[in-house]
């Protein structure tokens, strides 16, 4: 129970700053876990990371992937990460900032990667997600399409798919859609 006699004797003055604690911002459990994830990052050599808001905002960051094999070799693709205070209970929100011709990434930058949604588990971490994103470029998948047209071309005509990817990355039209250069 709360000691009522103590409360009765308590004056407002000791409620304020009782422990010499400076009233600074609080760090959520999610932020702390993210701090651990980031400090242990083991980036593949295709990937770099940056923190647009400086060293004290780890909850918003960007990674840049430059695949060294496959259809997308030589392109540079930027992803933004938004991590909520409920991390790792909630997965990070990831969007692709670079417009890309890809079966599993739509033109708004939504990414279809199972561990970002239905298969996310709190034991996974930022490293896992980064490896998953890398995999999207080496193994694009026509079975989970977000860009329906690109998926159909990959499935039915891989040669055409390859040349479409090249054209998009060099900066050009695929069908009606323009893709800015990302090489």
């Amino acid at each position: 129970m709360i000691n009522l006699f103590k409360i009765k004797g308590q004056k407002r003055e000791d409620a304020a700053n009782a422990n010499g604690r400076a009233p600074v911002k609080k760090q959520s459990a999610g932020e702390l876990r993210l701090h651990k994830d980031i400090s242990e990052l083991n980036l593949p050599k295709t990937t770099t990371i940056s923190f647009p808001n400086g060293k004290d905002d780890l909850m918003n960051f960007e990674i840049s992937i430059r695949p060294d094999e496959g259809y997308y070799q030589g392109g540079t693709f930027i992803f933004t990460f938004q991590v909520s205070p409920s991390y790792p209970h909630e997965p990070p929100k990831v969007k692709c900032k670079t417009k890309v011709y890809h079966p599993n990434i739509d033109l708004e930058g939504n990414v279809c990667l199972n561990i970002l949604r239905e298969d996310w588990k709190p034991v996974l971490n930022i490293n896992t997600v980064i490896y998953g994103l890398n995999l999207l470029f080496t193994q694009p998948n026509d079975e989970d399409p977000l860009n329906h047209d690109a998926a159909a071309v990959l499935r039915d005509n891989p040669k055409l798919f390859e040349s479409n990817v090249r054209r998009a990355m060099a900066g050009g039209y695929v069908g009606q859609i323009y893709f800015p250069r990302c090489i």
Partner: protein
Amino acid sequence: MANALAEQGRWRDLDKLLARPGNIVGHGFEHSPTLREEIGEFVRVLVVGAGGLGCELLKDLALSGFKNIDVIDMDTIEVSNLNRQFLFRLQDVGKSKAEVAAKRVMERVSGVTIVSHFCRIEDKDLEFYNDFNIIVLGLDSIEARSYINSVACSFLEYDCDDKPVPETVKPMVDGGTEGFKGHARVILPGTTPCFECNIWLFPPQVKFPLCTLAETPRTAAHCIEYAHLIKWDEAHSGKAFDADDPVHMQWVYSEALKRAELFGITGVTYSLTQGVVKNIIPAIASTNAIISAACALEALKIVSGCSKTLSNYLTYNGLEGTHIKVTDFVRDMDCLVCGPGTLIELDTSVTLSQFIELLGEHPNLHLSKPSVTYRGNNLYMQSPPILEEMTRSNLLLLLFDLMGKVPKDTIHVSGTTEKDGKKTSCLRKLRVVFKGVVGGSTDMDIARSS
């Protein structure tokens, strides 16, 4: 005259609990004919949330002898609330829930003062929360619970034997309902598990694969999530979706409806849209009443000691028959939020780099390559290289200065530790105490001694 009689009768049963001795009372209970009035006069309680549970809680607490109540909620009243949030009327739609709820309870229960706060919980500073003797939560999100939990636990201090200091314990009573199910729990930071100790109790929200939404929708919820997650961005480049904006919600609803028609799916309604987008499960008024009653009673027991408190997690299920079960969950002693952490005494002359070295030599830590963070400031990061570079200059600075010259505070470190020849990565809470620095006014102390 009739009112005065009613007023007397109102407290009759409560006084039987508080004014008489008993055999199953809590530890240290001191019955007294004035105990109810003392609780009313001296105890300050904060109710977080003025929705379905919050309305019940305010009513229940006011009728349990609490007279100094504050309530905080950022939401405004919607028509769909009126079936269960019984303090609100049709003419209140659009007004602050906290303000209207406070006013209505004060009109009905004389002598009670309810101060309302129409704002986000994050808008209040730590001292606001520290002023309350007990915090009662009527929330519907994990995020908000986790925030209040971390605030309440941040007041907790441990003595040198790792025992919680009683004056720093901020008790919480947390209620939650989802349809026919609910829970009530008592959180005494440092004694019973905090919210973060067993956050795994809360199942993660169901998330549909994006490609299912885009390609093969099968349910009304799929259509709604498509409009919410994919279509919104296509149509509103860069504009963030706001679940609390009815115009945005209406847009998602009408897009979902179109999509459902296209795929021959039925069942998309406005309220389902709200439910899916905000992850709301239809609320049952009686579940709120049952859970709130349990919470208010626990709050009374915590402040008065008139009976032993719930230990420590009650679940209620009214779906098939009625089941109530109480589980005694155990603490996570390594919990970053409520755990004691490791006490480290330091000289004010220690630099960050010396501190990092100390962590490796510390017998209980053996932490190699630690990164250090203090209240949101990353003092040193071992990796990635870009952050290492940005924080490297701190290494030569005094830790005391980097921590704003506070006499003691909590700091967090992550690194690798070796146990039985096996390397594991870990995140540790440290209680740093600077030797020879007393109270909160170091500068004044120095001025006086010189």
